[in-house]
């Protein structure tokens, strides 16, 4: 979510699944929720049925979502930024923005430093060798008062509004058509529909998923929509927002709890090698406000961090040892993401891999590279409820996994784990709800919960360190392990720890003898966290999930006052049970709702009240002019994200690394100039001469990733792999519907049956057609379905410039009819 956080302050879906029903207009780009999120899609239908909303779908394919859309337009994959900047241009040119909102709640009036520019596809400060920018000029001009300079009139040539106008000027409807292949009339029709939501009483919601993130400019795709929605005043509003539809159950929990190599729980970051001590680390996390009187909640960073360290190391974390700061690992590179991990594995620099809930052989780009990497490991531990392909990477499955087992020396351990229906715990959904669940049945065979396995691993390692010592035993030996049964920590024990508790008595600052909160109490919220070591909290944003009142995540009261789609007593949402983020922005600067039927949170004269928990200081009067985006140093939403993103403060159009077309706006630039690509992977890119067709991968509704092929009913519903192509390409290549085809890229090939459909039409870009080849994933060489190939046999190893999400949605292939593989009758 490295686009929502720079724009609004938090890396999460801004609104709520249920809130989608309040929208007047829904736009689905970069996603196919009807197919991939069918259950959540009920709220889209609800908006259509109950709210008479219109649904727009922009996609290279006519998807299941398009099947129920009011308006569909095609777009070539990887060109969404051109489209969105075109929309922004339209809104600015036709003055269809919500002026009062943009004035008060965005950084449109902020003046940017001298020297910032965008030319020939590059922002100021580009270093081609490092593939990175020096972002010094991407900041605000700071005035003599120490705050950013603003020009409320938007006349200053370097104010964000003027820079934005200039930046989007080339994206005319004609240019959009040339780049994206979206016919001009359709594009303009969509612009008109979108523009209607500039009215305060109308909102548009944007729904996206991996169709935007699976690109080398993935984060900037989302940024494109952030700009549009901010200009329209649709952030913080019921039925508005930018809604990142998470795919995996609990994938929101993954980032929330910091399961990324560069993160700590609650979106704090793991120290860098340069952060020699706690003070050095904290100096990078000052988060001084950029405008007078703003809240900027990140100013409390030290409280979150110290409380986290107390949760990790208990009494071993003291003020004297900087709360055990030295025991944290320090990063020597920005991230150890999966792409880097497998690069290291391929280079033989990795000994072992413990894999939990993860099937990289199928899921990450370039299967050949994955196999090479796995083959060079000394050991591989797979914790999974299912028999994954990765656990069987060494096994020969004919063309589907053509390896020589005798040559692979990796020792593989498979530890069967429970699945969600067999264990207890919480799942964090897309809209940040933490919902507790209970086991429905006993796990089969020898399966154990992941918690048990990890606990056992820890205890054995701890014993070994205790007995034998080692280079650096402290972080292991002192890990706080307060569980009743050390070998089996209970989920509720972990949840209580994550919520946080008082370590010592908290006394009244005025009267040291008066205890406000005694030691050992569950915290009510992160507002109680302290930086003196008297509180412990495993993940500050989750604070409030398990209080003295009990397990808030287990609440199941569906009551929804005024039917607003909030249901505040159903489970618990971070932060502080707020369901719609930035909801202060649903009222005007005076605290009055923008529109009566879009009421959410408002000022009643003495405090902020409403249907949702105000995302704001509950008693800050409107007269103080504190911005509604309390996580941002500016207090407002960012149209211009300063240096918070590696590849630019504004979204700019770049072609995918493998593209059938040159970048029309900057013909010399290949791919996203700030995206990282390893040398060998760069050499393995294919050209559009050899690989003329634009491939994209996606899922189908009948399956979930590589899991459900192990379930009989899902296997029945979609038993075998297929590749989708349009009728024109089929005719050109002599491919029959249901016949076998071979699809190959510069990295590999796959053989599959073909589905010839009217739903994939050539996309006319710059007067010439681009044929799209659609490659759904889900089939592998284990499970109950027919064996198949993963699209990662073909995909390039390059990821988003900010978060390294692989470019699975746009690359190049060639295709030809072929004969069935041996052993296949039909």
């Amino acid at each position: 979510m490295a686009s929502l956080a720079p724009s609004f302050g938090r890396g999460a879906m801004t609104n709520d699944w249920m809130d989608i029903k309040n929208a007047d207009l829904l736009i689905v780009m970069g996603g196919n929720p009807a197919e991939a999120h069918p259950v959540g899609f009920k709220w889209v239908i609800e908006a259509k049925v109950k709210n008479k909303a219109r649904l727009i779908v922009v996609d290279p394919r006519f998807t299941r979502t398009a099947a129920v859309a009011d308006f569909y337009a095609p777009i070539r994959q990887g060109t969404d930024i051109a489209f969105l900047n075109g929309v922004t241009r339209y809104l600015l040119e036709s003055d269809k923005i919500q002026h009062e909102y943009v004035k008060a709640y965005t950084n449109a009036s902020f003046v940017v430093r001298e020297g910032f520019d965008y030319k020939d596809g590059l922002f100021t400060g580009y270093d081609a060798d490092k593939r990175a920018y020096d972002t010094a000029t991407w900041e605000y001009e700071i005035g003599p008062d120490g705050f950013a300079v603003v020009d409320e009139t938007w006349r200053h040539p370097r104010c964000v509004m003027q820079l934005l106008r200039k930046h989007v000027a080339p994206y005319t409807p004609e240019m959009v058509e040339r780049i994206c292949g979206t016919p001009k009339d359709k594009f303009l029709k969509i612009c008109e529909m979108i523009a209607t939501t500039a009215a305060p009483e109308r909102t548009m919601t944007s729904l996206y998923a991996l169709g935007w993130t699976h690109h080398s400019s993935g984060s900037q795709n989302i940024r494109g929509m952030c700009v549009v929605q901010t200009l329209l005043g649709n952030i913080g509003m019921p039925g508005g927002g930018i809604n990142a539809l998470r795919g995996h159950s609990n994938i929101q929990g993954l980032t929330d709890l910091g399961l990324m190599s560069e993160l700590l729980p609650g979106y704090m970051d793991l120290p860098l090698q340069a952060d020699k001590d706690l003070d050095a680390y904290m100096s990078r996390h000052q988060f001084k406000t950029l405008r007078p009187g703003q809240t900027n909640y990140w100013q409390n960073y030290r409280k979150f961090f110290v409380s986290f360290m107390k949760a990790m190391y208990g009494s071993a974390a003291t003020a004297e040892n900087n709360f055990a700061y030295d025991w944290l690992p320090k990063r020597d590179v920005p991230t150890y993401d999966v792409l880097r991990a497998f690069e290291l594995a391929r280079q033989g620099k990795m000994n072992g891999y413990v894999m939990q809930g993860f099937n990289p052989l199928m899921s990450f780009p370039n299967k050949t590279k994955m196999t090479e990497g796995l083959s060079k490991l000394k050991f591989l531990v797979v914790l999974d409820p299912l028999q994954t392909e990765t656990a069987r990477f060494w096994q020969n499955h004919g063309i589907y996994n053509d390896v020589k087992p005798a040559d692979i020396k990796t020792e593989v351990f498979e530890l069967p784990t429970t699945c969600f229906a067999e264990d207890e715990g919480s799942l964090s959904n897309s809209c940040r709800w933490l919902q507790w669940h209970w086991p429905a049945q006993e796990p089969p065979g020898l399966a154990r919960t992941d918690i048990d396995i990890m606990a056992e691993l820890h205890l054995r390692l701890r014993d070994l360190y205790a007995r034998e010592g080692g280079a650096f035993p402290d972080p292991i030996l002192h890990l706080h392990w307060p569980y009743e049964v050390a070998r089996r920590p209970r989920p509720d024990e972990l949840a209580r720890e994550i919520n946080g508790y008082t370590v010592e008595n908290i006394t009244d600052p005025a009267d040291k003898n008066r205890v406000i909160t005694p030691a050992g109490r569950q915290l009510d919220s992160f507002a109680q966290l302290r930086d003196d070591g008297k509180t412990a909290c495993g993940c500050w944003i989750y604070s409030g999930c398990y209080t003295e009142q009990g397990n808030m995540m287990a609440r199941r009261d569906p009551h929804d006052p005024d039917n607003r789609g909030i249901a505040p007593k159903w489970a618990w949402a971070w932060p502080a049970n707020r369901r719609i983020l930035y909801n202060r922005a649903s009222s005007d600067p005076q605290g009055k709702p923008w529109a009566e039927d879009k009421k959410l949170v408002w000022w009643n004269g003495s405090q902020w009240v409403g249907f949702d928990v105000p995302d704001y200081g509950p008693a800050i009067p409107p007269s103080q002019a504190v911005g509604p985006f309390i996580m941002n140093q500016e207090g407002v939403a960012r149209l211009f994200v300063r240096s918070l993103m590696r590849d630019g403060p504004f979204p700019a159009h770049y072609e995918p690394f493998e593209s059938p077309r040159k970048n029309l706006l900057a013909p010399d630039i290949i791919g996203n100039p700030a995206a990282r690509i390893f040398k060998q992977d760069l050499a393995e890119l294919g050209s559009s001469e050899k690989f003329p067709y634009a491939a994209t991968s996606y899922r189908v509704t009948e399956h979930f990733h590589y899991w459900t092929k192990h379930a009989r009913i899902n296997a029945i519903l979609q038993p075998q792999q297929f590749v989708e192509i349009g009728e024109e390409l089929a005719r050109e290549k002599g491919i029959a519907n249901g016949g076998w085809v071979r699809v190959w890229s510069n990295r590999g090939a796959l053989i599959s049956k073909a589905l010839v459909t009217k739903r994939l039409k050539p996309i006319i870009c710059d007067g010439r057609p681009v044929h799209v080849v659609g490659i759904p994933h889900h089939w592998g060489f284990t499970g109950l379905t027919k064996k198949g190939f993963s699209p990662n046999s073909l995909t390039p190893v390059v990821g988003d410039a900010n978060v390294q999400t692989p470019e699975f949605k746009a690359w190049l292939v060639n295709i030809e009819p072929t004969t069935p593989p041996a052993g296949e009758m039909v």
Partner: protein
Amino acid sequence: MADTNSLDVIRRSASSDVPPSVRTHQEVAKLIDVSRCIGCKACQAACEEWNDVRDNVGVFSGTIQNPPDLSARSWTLMRFSEYENPKTGELEWLIRKDGCMHCTDPGCLKACPAPGAIVQYANGIVDFVEENCIGCRYCIKGCPFNIPRYSAQDNKAYKCTLCSDRVSVGQEPACAKACPTGAIMFGSKGSMIEQAADRVLDLHARGYENAGLYDPPGVGGTHVMYVLQHADQPELYQGLPKDPEISPLVQIWKGGAKAFGFAVMGLGLIGGFLHYITVGPNEVPSEAEREAVELEREEKVKQAAEQGARR
């Protein structure tokens, strides 16, 4: 099939007995709003789950429609049609959940020769009672919608039961329960018709001027109804019949032909009986026997003469 007394039978195949009818009942209906169906197949999965049937894991055969057809173990199926609307020039992907329509005048029940193998409950559900099924597949020929399927495993016919077992205890069918978008609604037939009217108005407002309810009168109406964007062309939805009715051939077979058979066979029997008691038997008189003996004698004489002549 459900054998529960809260679903009183009002019609029973191959039976003439009048069922009890003093209790009041409400007709139920399932309303499938095709315009909000996303083709996710949750209904298919729920159907297999609830009814404990599992079809075979097949192969891809050029369509995402899987299994490729209804079967004795797939009682409902999403059917997909890619339709290029000549009026708008736009592609439409029409997705229809196929399955038993639970006709008011069910062709299967009419055709069924086995007493009580097909029943119609007072709430409108048409149910197969497999223990009475003889496996003749007449239901397949009687059905105007091509729904029932035969199992070679047990020689019985199967189809959607509208979850009569669930409905009998006040629950909605499994497919309606599972449908994420509310495209499958369930309730009294009256309320479903009202719901449909709302949906049709909404579709009109979205430019589907021929949107409408599919509740074909040719079979007396159905207890599974569709809201269609193009109610004037139901065939677009993978051959949903425009004016379905029980085939006239089936009507004659189960009507006129029975009467005709009764007449001709009865005529033979009664005619014979009447003839026998009025005209009486045709006996061989003794003169005839004598004539025959005489004939034999004459023949002998004739042959002897011939032999003599030859010698």
